[in-house]
């Protein structure tokens, strides 16, 4: 026991100031996101829902991103694969299921938007859309508001490497650099923009673009959640200290098709996908926790049972839940009478 304790104190997560409980909580979120995502795919294949878009293999870095931020104060601007991020911030599986079934009780949009279009004011998750990268200038706007009000809030925004070619990426980063705003830009480089590989999207590193905007950029291995945590945490600290933005490029790989509407084997090989599946960060992180005595096969079985029951219950609830009445789809084009906000 004493020996394990010593190991833990010298562990990577302890060195980052992450408690054992938090290190385990991160693992549980990664697993939850993975199992939710797999269920989403099954539900689509079974014809229960119309569409699912996956974040599989990106969960370790998404979880680490959220845990490195201040979940009480900061603003989160996710992109459409960020299930683990929104779960880390406090969205429940039931709420995600309500979204995937497009039901009225879905806090993201009451079933108006496609799944993966997150937004929940209560959780400081900012509403998003489908045209990619529009959220980057928004994150800069949240950071500008925080700076103007003297609030200690930092905004963090996700986008893909394909998206990083949009004007809004460059315009947003440049603005934030000039004003030294408290914002963390995170490119989740999963190597594919639907069918177009990274080599045909960019001739350089996304992280290097930060130099042109006058702030640091880092590339980090997305399968190593503790390294992602370290880099995002440092970026948050720089932002909060008034030192300005950071660009982080998380290297990952999309092992699923772009969405349930895509056949990825039309543009890449099964072998290529298998190589990356073998690098999955979740089992690696599990081994890490197990070696420190923080995790075990028994705990894994218990967790799997618990999460499966949670997902089953959420699925059943969401499937039975009512849609927004069609006549209500005319509401909230503008503020209703007497509403100040």
């Amino acid at each position: 026991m004493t020996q394990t304790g010593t190991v833990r104190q010298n562990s990577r997560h302890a060195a980052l100031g992450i408690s054992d409980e938090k290190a385990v909580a991160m693992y549980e979120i990664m697993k939850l996101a993975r199992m939710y995502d797999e269920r989403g795919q099954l539900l689509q294949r079974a014809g229960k829902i119309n569409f699912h878009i996956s974040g599989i293999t990106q969960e370790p870095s998404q979880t680490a991103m959220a845990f490195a931020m201040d979940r009480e104060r900061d603003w989160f601007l996710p992109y459409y694969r960020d299930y683990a991020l929104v779960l880390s911030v406090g969205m429940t599986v039931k709420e995600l299921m309500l979204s995937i079934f497009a039901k009225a009780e879905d806090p993201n949009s009451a079933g108006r938007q496609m799944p993966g279009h997150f937004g929940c004011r209560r959780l400081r998750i900012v509403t998003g859309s489908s045209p990619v990268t529009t959220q980057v200038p928004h994150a800069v706007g949240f950071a500008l508001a925080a700076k103007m009000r003297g609030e200690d809030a930092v905004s963090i925004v996700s986008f893909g490497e394909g998206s990083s070619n949009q004007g809004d990426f460059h315009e947003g980063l440049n603005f934030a650099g000039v004003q030294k705003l408290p914002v963390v830009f995170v490119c989740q480089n999963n190597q594919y923009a639907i069918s177009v590989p990274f080599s045909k999207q960019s001739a350089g590193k996304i992280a290097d673009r930060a130099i042109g905007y006058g702030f640091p950029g880092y590339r980090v291995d997305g399968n190593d959640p503790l390294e992602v945590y370290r880099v995002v945490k440092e970026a948050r600290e720089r932002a909060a200290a008034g030192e300005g933005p950071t660009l982080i490029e998380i290297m990952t790989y999309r092992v699923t098709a772009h969405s349930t509407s895509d056949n990825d084997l039309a543009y890449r090989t099964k072998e290529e996908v298998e190589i990356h599946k073998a690098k999955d960060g979740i089992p690696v992180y599990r081994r890490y926790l197990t070696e420190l005595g923080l995790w075990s096969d028994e705990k894994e079985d218990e967790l799997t049972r618990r999460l499966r029951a949670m997902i089953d219950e959420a699925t059943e609830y969401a499937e039975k839940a009512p849609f927004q009445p069609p006549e209500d789809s005319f509401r909230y084009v503008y503020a209703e009478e007497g509403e100040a906000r």
Partner: protein
Amino acid sequence: MPVIEYIEAIRLAMKEEMERDPEVFVMGEDVGLKGGVFGTTKGLQQQFGEDRALDTPLAESAIAGVAIGAAMAGMKPIAEMQYSDFMFPATNQIISEAAKIRYRSNNDWSCPIVIRAPIGGGVFGGLYHSQCPESVFFGTPGLKIVAPSTAYDAKGLLKAAIRDPDPVLFFENKKCYRLVADEVPEEDYTVPIGKSKVMREGGDITVIGYSMPLHFAMQAAEELSREEGVEAHVLDLRTLQPLDRAGILEAAAKTGKVLIVHEDNKTGGVGAEVAAIIAEELLYDLDAPIRRLCGPDVPAMPINPPGEKHFLLNKEKLKSAMLELARF
């Protein structure tokens, strides 16, 4: 009551709203130290500091997008587009984002932003400093669009826009800036968004329009009254979205002869919608076909003086169209 210029009315509206509410601020290219290329934001940075009269990089999508983020965070930004001709890079942010934020979040989020943009020609601005882009944004649910023609309405509508909980496009006419001056009260007031205004009462023909061309209509109406005994009823839409249906129908019913005028080109313009509203509700009350007098369907006006003059509306063009309609 003091008579002030249209541009001063806009500047005062911003200054007073910034004094009233610390969350109101203005951002855009050259709005700070220089006070705007037209002088619309003159003195604001000196009074409110660099943050609240914020000079931004030359990038319109960021001006709109950053303002949208700040608005969602609870601020009340006024984003200035230097010329409406240059707001197209921001169109995705305006149409895909600002207009849909409340709706797509089922009322969880809102976007109380004002985007100011100068419209119109007659300043030898050529193709890209003269356009009227209203029709690009018109018909986008979730946006409100205003386009005042007088100093009084410019001030009152801008204040209403700043206090409005939804995104408002404020199209100010650059030709009106120093050409138009009228009585503006010193005390605080707003002009309600969505309400048209009768500028002149008359029983023979109805002219419906917005922004600069209404001044030509008013001049033409005075001459026609004197010279021909024709009395024109002139309606200023003031708000383009939502259109004041009741006001339009009332004005059209008054004479049964309607001429719609705007500087934006004819095809797909706001006037087409106004004509459709009248046709839907009042067709059998009309005594003449609905007429439209608008900018021609060419990409934009040329800079050479004869070309610009030929493109633009003026008093003579209005007078002749109004007389022809009166005689129908």
